[in-house]
């Protein structure tokens, strides 16, 4: 058997290129901020922007049957990690290996903020994302005020949890996530 060494060392993967984590609310705001970061980089060095749900996992979740059952914050975080593992494999690591600058919008910080806001213990969150390399730089951006930017990860999970009869209020959870992001 070919032995795989589990890629659980956060320090190793960014050695070649530069990873910029763009964290925050919304979807368009994050992509806009990612593009602005990459605009400052010489064209030959640009490794692109990796966005949420490149794997289509959350898209598939949307079309699940109504009676398939509610997804808790922990389940949603496991799915986010699976999506991030996909993005790292196909988008982020290949660009880093070519010594390029890549922007991940969002990355680990947004999911960690959601987890903390939902009451998940920090040690579990840290372990969950142990496979993800540490970014070289982190930029936190709020959603543009008044923009109808409701298609990001934060908006998705807020809507999902708020849909549960005993779940938190959408706005309240979103504000809580933003407070965690600003910490």
């Amino acid at each position, binding site marked *: *058997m*070919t*032995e*795989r*060494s*589990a*890629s*659980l060392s956060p320090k190793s993967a960014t050695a070649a290129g530069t990873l910029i984590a763009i964290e925050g609310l919304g979807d368009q705001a994050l992509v806009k901020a990612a593009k602005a970061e990459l605009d400052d980089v010489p064209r030959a060095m640009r490794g692109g922007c990796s966005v949420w749900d490149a*794997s289509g*996992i959350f898209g*598939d*979740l949307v079309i*699940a*049957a109504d*009676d*398939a*059952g*509610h*997804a*808790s*914050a*922990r*389940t949603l975080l*496991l*799915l986010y*990690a*699976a999506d991030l*593992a*996909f993005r790292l*494999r196909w988008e982020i690591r290949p660009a880093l290996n070519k010594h390029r600058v890549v922007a991940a919008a969002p990355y680990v910080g947004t999911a960690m903020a959601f987890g903390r*806001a*939902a*009451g998940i213990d920090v*040690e*579990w969150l840290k*372990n*969950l994302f*142990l*496979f993800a390399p540490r970014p070289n730089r982190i930029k936190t951006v709020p959603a543009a005020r008044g923009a109808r930017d409701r298609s990001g990860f934060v908006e998705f999970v807020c809507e999902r949890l708020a849909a*549960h*009869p*005993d*779940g*938190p209020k959408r706005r*309240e*959870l979103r504000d*809580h996530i933003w407070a965690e992001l600003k910490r």
Partner: protein
Amino acid sequence: MASALSLRDARRHARAHFTSPAERRGLLIAFEGPDGSGKTTQRKLFKKWLQSEGYDVVTTKWNSSELIKPIIKPRKNARALSPEEFSLLHAADFRHRVEQQVMPALWQGKLVIADRFLFTGLARDVARGLDLDWVLKLYTPLLWPDLVFYFSVSPDTSGRRVTATRTPNYYESGRDVTNLDDPVESYHRFITRVIKEYESLAVIFNMITVDAEQSMSDQHYRIRELFKEGITRPWSDWNEEAVAEWLMVAGGE
């Protein structure tokens, strides 16, 4: 987020519910073992016997969440999953079933039979090269079964039984990590590794080993005996956190 129930209250509520002498408490029995160990056959026999004894029985199977399975299946068919993605999606499927099927049934005093439990994820993921500690923590807060039956067979027996009727599929045969084209050869190599992990887990987690090379009836009667001995065990305090979280976050009652 503020919950209607504090963690301390939720823990107390969980403990009081599962240790109440007034009612028959919910029981969780897990059947573990490699493919071809005959555990599904034994699970079906066991379920029928339990029902004849008056138990209200619920079964939960590995990778069967109605929410997550439709995400995993097409990706498996497309051979599109890395070991990390494979591991994380199966942990999500498990978590969803624990919250939606297992916890509610246990709370109602039912007996839940799990045809494979988190140990399947551990054995397979570690056999794929992932770190045991990382994988185990994905499954926390842990819900410990009252009894875990481990159906022990050799890699040869597992391979012979599985390949007698079909060709093992891509992930089942571990072709994603063995780099072997022949599914039967790959299966043998992969299941040898999986069984090695299972054997270690059986010791670490105090599973009850059933010799799955014995006849079906011998195994079945042995399971009955072990069950009668095992169900007198008190509710495990280790489960307090998992039940409390379910009560607080996942909707609970």
